[in-house]
């Protein structure tokens, strides 16, 4: 029986993992070229890949968790090259490690307690404005 548009089942088997190679290459390339941005593509891809009810909170958490964990090796690969190229020195990086770690942990703990929807819209607008400024 043909499934309706609203019904999706999680694809099983090895075949589906191959679908992630090209998007992974694209996300990583962007991450390396711009020092960020890999997460946007990764989250898009995982939103389609991890099927289920759109309103499913558990699915949203799974997408977010998978995105973060996927982007870490991309960022690591990029960071090593940036360091090797001499684009960043240890005196640039060391002062930001502790505050970044503290902030990240606090944000992760607050994740389930804060409605981030409005925040995301505000920051998207900020990103657009910043992008325009950078183009000038």
């Amino acid at each position, binding site marked *: 029986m043909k499934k309706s548009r609203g019904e999706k089942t999680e694809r099983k088997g090895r075949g589906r993992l191959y679908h992630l190679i090209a998007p992974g290459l694209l996300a990583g390339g962007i991450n390396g070229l711009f020092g960020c941005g890999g997460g946007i593509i990764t989250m898009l891809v*995982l939103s389609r890949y991890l099927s289920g009810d759109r309103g499913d909170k558990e699915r949203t958490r799974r997408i977010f968790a998978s995105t*973060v964990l996927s982007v870490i090796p991309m960022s690591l690969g990029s960071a090593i090259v940036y360091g090797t190229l001499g684009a960043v020195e240890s005196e640039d*990086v060391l002062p930001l*490690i502790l505050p970044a770690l503290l902030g990240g942990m*606090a944000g992760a703990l607050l994740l389930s307690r804060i409605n981030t929807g409005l925040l995301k819209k505000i920051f998207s607008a900020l990103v657009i404005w910043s992008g325009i400024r950078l183009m000038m």
Partner: protein
Amino acid sequence: MDFLLTVLFGGFVGLGVGSGGLYLIYLTLINGTAQLTAQGMNLYFFLAASAGGAIMHLWHRRADLGAVAVLGVAGAVSAAGGALLAGCIDGELLRHIFGVFMVISGIFALLRK
């Protein structure tokens, strides 16, 4: 002040709001950091900011590890290539291209449900 701002931006990473892009924008537009250096700093910033959350995600088994492995490995390989390419591009040009990318991704994020 820098310490507190970095904590704040780290919090945004943990919340999944704007991720590392906001910190990069702060470094370039507010702090006046050169584009390539800012991009490099942003990567290390993201690694530190996401470390705690990553441990929690793994501990609670929230992620699809098969997908993570494929995306992560493919991404790490191309990320190195992208970084090498960034090192070959003029700083000002890279800044402008980055600006275009920010506008596109910001619009996309705004329109996304």
